[in-house]
């Protein structure tokens, strides 16, 4: 029987479909009997989308203006 530790170690492979059939079966068996690992898996799955949203940045106005000026100058010379 897989432990929680074994299970959580394989989450990425599980979600990417990288596991061997027996690894996958053992992992799903553990998940079927362990709700903390199911909660953990759900959080692990949600993490990328939460981060994607949080890490979006807007270029500060003055840097955007600098970029415009920089490209104007260089594009004119190409």
């Amino acid at each position, binding site marked *: 029987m897989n*432990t*929680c530790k074994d299970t959580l170690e394989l989450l*990425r492979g599980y979600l990417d479909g990288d596991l061997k059939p027996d690894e996958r079966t053992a992992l799903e068996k553990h998940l079927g009997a362990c709700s903390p690992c199911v909660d953990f898996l759900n959080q692990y799955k949600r993490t990328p989308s*939460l981060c994607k949203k949080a890490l979006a*940045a807007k270029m500060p106005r003055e840097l955007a203006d600098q970029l415009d000026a920089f490209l104007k100058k260089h594009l004119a010379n*190409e």
Partner: protein
Amino acid sequence: MRTENDDSQLLEKALAKDNAAFAELVRRYRDPVYGLALRMTRSEADAAEVTQDAFLAAYRHLSEIRTDQAFGAWVHRIAANQALMKLRHRKVVANVEAPLPTPEFNERGSLVEEVADWNPTALEQSLDAELGKAISHAADELPEEYRQVFLLKDVEDLTYEQIAEITGDSVPAIKSRLHRARLAMRAAIDRFYLERE
């Protein structure tokens, strides 16, 4: 959001030396490109430089873009390359980084940590902004090689093969780092919600 011209039309015009069309592509992608560069370099000045260099390189190599490639994804990869080059040239003493957080297990390998509810019912307006800050801080704290992989895979949606091409690392190494980075980011989000309970 999109005007009458879609990216591929603008790209076609830009290839025909229409600089106004290229400028429009820059306007569309400068924020996400800058955002990636900022997260990767953790410096506004470096990020601004990476953004400039990436768009200039994109302009110079515009004819090399494949017809099935989206301009946005392509310029992001150029920016990721430029950011990595900048980091490699940054000859700073490696700062000592705290070990990455991992889940806690008991001696039988069972998960012992308390897991927070990520869908609190009492949603406050400020929650999103505060969570955003916590996530941004946690991403900045990731050791560099973990941060790059996490940004490129989970924020930029590149494939493992594309990341391997950019970083020069093997796909298994990238996968392993991605897992560690996700565990650390999950822990940071969980800590945020636990502290609010």
